[in-house]
């Protein structure tokens, strides 16, 4: 099996780990980290295809993803901090008021 497939597989594995992290962890900070994992899995996929297709566009898109990730982390952490100030916790499950 060529290395190409292993890249895909690695990317899939990292993505799955990120998904499981988001689904199981209650600490909002760890959830954010898991999201970073998922983003990185996708980035890896972009770079892999960029390489194998011989075009540079994938890498440019990776750059944009990183910018979005940076903005997302900044805002996400801001929300976590202000929520911590209000409730004294970073438990995502404690933020369950928006329901029936």
């Amino acid at each position, binding site marked *: 099996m060529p290395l190409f497939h292993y890249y895909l597989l690695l990317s899939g594995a990292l993505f799955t780990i990120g998904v499981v992290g988001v*689904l199981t*962890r*209650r600490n909002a900070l760890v959830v954010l980290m898991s999201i970073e994992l998922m983003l990185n899995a996708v980035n890896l996929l972009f770079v892999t295809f960029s390489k194998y297709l011989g075009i540079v566009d994938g890498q440019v898109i990776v750059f944009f993803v990183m910018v979005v990730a940076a903005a997302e982390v900044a805002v996400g952490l801001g929300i976590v901090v202000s929520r911590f100030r209000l409730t004294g916790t970073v438990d*995502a499950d404690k933020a369950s008021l928006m*329901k029936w």
Partner: protein
Amino acid sequence: MIDYLFLTILLPLVGVLVNGFFGARLPKKLVAVIGCGTVGAAFLIGVSALIALARLPVAERSVELSLFEWMAAGDLRVHAALLFDPLSAVMLVVVSGIGLLIHVYSIGYMWKDSGFARYFTYLNLFIVSMLILILGNNFVVFYVGWELVGLCSYLLIGFWFHKPSAADAAKKAFIVNRVGDLGFALGIFAIFAVFGTVQFSEVFHAIREPVNGFVDGQNLLVLGAIAVLLFIGAMGKSAQIPLYVWLPDAMEGPTPVSALIHAATMVTAGVYMVARCHVLYELVPGVLAFVGVIGAVTAVLAASIALVQHDIKRVLAYSTISQLGYMFLGCGVGAYAAAIFHLMTHAFFKALLFLGSGSVIHSMEHAIRHAHGDADPQDMRNMGGLGRHMRITALTFVVGSAALAGVPFLSGFYSKEEILTSAWEGNRLLWGLGVAGAVMTAFYMTRQVLKTFFGKFRLGDDIEAGLHESAAVMTVPLLLLAVGAVGAGWIAKPLHVFLSPVFNSQEVIHGGVEAAAHGGGHGSLMVIAICAAFAGIAVGVALYAKASDRPTRLAAALEPVHRLLYNKYYVDEIYDRLMISQGHALSRFLANVFDAHFIDGVVNGVAKVVGGVGEVLKKCQTGYVRNYALTMAAGVVAILLYFLMR
């Protein structure tokens, strides 16, 4: 000039938009100038277009102007197109001219009304609608005008909508017209189904020159049905039996509106339609005879009701119905040009009479309010001797009445005489009815003039002191209309020559014109007509010239007849019993039973089902973010599964 014909519609429409949207904020003078100016411009364009048309060779006097394609659906192609031929030219000038005078008069009549701008908006819209109706070159455009006229009559009759009687009268006019309009619409559908087109010229061409034996028995039946359906529409618009009941109530609107409805617009639409479709009617003599009979019967019945009414406007309203009956009588015996001629002369003197009565009411109202009385300013029993205070109004009113009564050498004499002569040649019975109606016409007009303008004022001196002549803006239109009421008859000959290409037949220019114009031919018929007029006048003078108890004695002697006439043959009551109360019962059933139980049940049931489902499904909204994320993940898994399975 003919190319700019669309401006006659467009300019008043601009007036509608300007006065409608900004009128309340504009000064009244500007509103009046816009309202009258646009109609005046339309009139001038109409006159110059008429002259331009008259200059064309006779064979080319039918101009079609296509403005744009309005709608196209399947085989149906409707152009917003105008047809300008002698018939529409005459109508255009009459409608815009009379309409202009009524507009000017309205400035004075409505000056103190708070809805001044609204009034002129409606009035302009009325002119627009009527011009669309007259100038349309196909049945669909015609129908647009037809319906718009109905709408405008509704708006104007109900102009003082805070008065329940006015609101009711407006509704009555609208609903009764709907009955007729339904027939008219069905007629148009049938025309499209049979001929595949709605354009006048194409339809009439197909009728006139049938391809491969179109006119056989069965098709004649179809044509007859179409003719009857169209005539049902005309019955509604032109207030013929049995759909005339709305017109007397229409006087709830401001008086100039009555003049507009009765003289220039609206009610003439039906006559115009029958004249326009004469090709169709001539092919089905049975229907044509039906038109004539309806016209004659309406003429007599309405005139008989007018004999005993006390309200000054109500007499005139029934007179209008009666005169419209004459026009249909003329159509029914094939004298279309005579009908249009009578339409024109009637427009002059009926507008004059209504505006004159408006002047009287205006003055009476003012005087009564000034003296803190509460008498009815429209009741002729309260009037009398007004001629001394309102000389111009009285003079013009007398002229109009004489024209309507058929005094020789005034306009009404010529046109009525012409219709009666044609009727004599068509059907003696119809002629007899017509003469009877003429006698009654002369009588009730004499009665009205004498009761209103002569004798002694019946309400006492303090109110009489408040009476005064109306302002010049109201009397000048009266004088102009009086000139028309006198002189319109003298153009009979050129009018007939001008109209003859439209009606395309020789029999129109027969004895009637000759008799009227030269006094030859049917001289004896003319003598009978003159005698009829003077007989009516004589009876009127005998009864009402001096204050006496003769009228009351006569009424007492003919008590049942008088009561029947005074209550208008109880037609309103019969309609109420037969239809309106049934309609009320149905409405009550629908409101109290059907709506309350069935409709509400469905609506509430739907709401309950939705609520119940929501009650169950809301449990999905746990509020936990990772719970939602789990659902998303399940979705991703499912989508990937689909890609794998594919």
